[in-house]
């Protein structure tokens, strides 16, 4: 016998069904993202570790030797995959550009929040936001047409090298670091400043002893974020660094970074060969470094919260 009331009580209502469907849809979308992350790690690691497991390159040799010629083998019969020139190049441009960019970015952020909030808000903020969005190849092109000739005329050499890379990355991470520093300074509560001023401190004393101190974790996050962008930047650096896989003698001799070698080399090697696997090991190194930067940012954020 058919009973409508019994049916409606025992069956799921329309709302319940749509609720379940919604939960499944949104969970699937999230699962897709997690799956992508896991598969990036799986594929890059499986390719990158092949250098050490199937081509028998010593991990320590990979990190400390300076001859990069993974297509040919050395006297022990393993490929000559010494990544030290690229590692030095990558860390060199990253650290140098962060060292130059940090004072500029923090000073500008102080100017925008403490000294002249009005001008800061009206002029500097829109401009920095715009510059964050400029594509990196445009920075590379400017580097090629302005920075490289400038370095060549001022310091000699070809102009290509770590110095040119540093300048390009400095300008590139400047807007990002600045706008994150502004956020960090704005997060300092207003009554900190009022308390300090009420104690008779000058504006600079307030900035230096109160505002900067309490914003330190946020500022450090901004700088490390800038460094992680600089470390992973590929094309802009590749265009100005000179692409010579040699240990850099000075700041104006052609050099290379992990990303520049990857950009240049991946298309010229055969999938599965030792030369190709060695490139994937560089990609794995990049991946691990971006994990390290991520970890640092999380650590700082946690300490800042207490």
């Amino acid at each position: 016998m058919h009973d409508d009331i019994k049916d409606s009580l025992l069956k799921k209502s329309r709302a319940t069904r749509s609720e379940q469907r919604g939960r499944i849809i949104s969970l699937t979308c999230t699962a897709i993202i997690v799956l992508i992350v896991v598969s990036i790690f799986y594929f890059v690691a499986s390719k990158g570790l092949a250098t050490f497991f199937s081509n028998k390159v010593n991990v320590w040799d990979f990190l400390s030797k300076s001859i990069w010629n993974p297509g040919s083998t050395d006297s022990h019969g393993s490929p000559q995959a010494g990544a030290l020139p690229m590692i030095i190049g990558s860390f060199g441009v990253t650290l140098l550009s962060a060292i130059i960019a940090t004072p500029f970015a923090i000073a500008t952020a102080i100017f925008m929040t403490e000294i002249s909030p009005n001008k800061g808000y009206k002029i500097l903020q829109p401009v920095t936001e715009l510059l964050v969005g400029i594509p990196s190849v445009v920075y590379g092109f400017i580097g090629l047409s302005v920075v490289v000739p400038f370095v060549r005329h001022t310091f000699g050499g070809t102009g290509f090298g770590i110095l040119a890379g540093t300048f390009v990355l400095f300008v590139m991470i400047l807007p990002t670091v600045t706008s994150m520093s502004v956020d960090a300074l704005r997060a300092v509560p207003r009554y900190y400043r009022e308390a300090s001023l009420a104690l008779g401190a000058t504006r600079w004393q307030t900035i230096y002893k109160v505002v900067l101190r309490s914003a330190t974790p946020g500022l450090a996050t901004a700088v490390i974020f800038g460094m992680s962008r600089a470390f992973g930047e590929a094309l802009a650096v590749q265009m100005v660094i000179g692409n010579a896989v040699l240990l850099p003698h000075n700041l104006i001799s052609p050099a290379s970074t992990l990303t520049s070698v990857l950009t240049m080399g991946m298309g010229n090697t055969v999938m599965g060969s030792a030369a190709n696997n060695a490139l994937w090991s560089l990609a794995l190194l990049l991946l691990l470094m971006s994990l390290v930067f991520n970890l640092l940012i999380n650590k700082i954020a946690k300490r800042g919260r207490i």
Partner: protein
Amino acid sequence: MNSKKWNTVATGILYFIAGVMILILAFLLIFILWNGLPHVSWHFLTTPARSFQTGGGIGIQLFNSFYLLFLAMLISIPISIGAGIYLSEYAKQNWLTSLIRTSIDILSSLPSIVVGLFGFLVFSIQAGLGFSILSGALALTVFNLPLLTRNVEESLNSISESQREAGLALGLSKWETVLRIIIPEALPGIVTGMILGAGRVFGEAAALIYTAGQSAPALDFTNWNPFYIASPLNPLRPAETLAVHIWKINSEGIMPDAAQVSAGASAVLIIAVLIFNFGARFISARVYGKMTGTK
């Protein structure tokens, strides 16, 4: 020196550095537009590129950029909205959620060249798509998803809890509350994030050189059948975008007027970024007015 003098000196230094910063930023913008705009003409925007002669344009590259952007957004918008809803409405405070959040963080901080190489390995080689618009769009989706998701989640989180309670009190399910009440209210924020994300995707090159490829075969703009090999809509053809083009002609150095073409193309990219930026503000204000009835 006493503290008052220090104050004056420090303020002076801060003014100076901020001034230098403004100069650098202004120089960048003026340099690009000043050098590039004289080369931009209707002819430049519509003719195909020439490899060995002067006078080539960026027509095909420009079309490829927009088509790739469209496909990438088509894939990434629904996924990011779904994931954003899950994280803001359904996720509980437990290890699984923190694992998901960590992996989104990691994905957003990955260098784009690593994303590009992953796309090359998985989409171009293993899935057999080759250098094609489709594998480029998928790589851009990977690159774009974490930031879009975070933006959707933040926009949804900014809606007050009382709106959700109101929806539930009216007998709507949670999902219906989200779809009918929360998302419309959060739409301005979501749209702004999408447009800014589109601007980023538009200028991305490193993720594309090994997925969408570095060549732009001639297109037949009279045949729009997506299965025809020279059709502009064919998703399986290689497609060099504007940003990749700038990189390519500068690092190869065989095009005689590479400097002029890249100056013009850079100006076009910058103008596109400007349009995306202002468009984001304008549209979000319009959507806000429409959704809230304030206008």
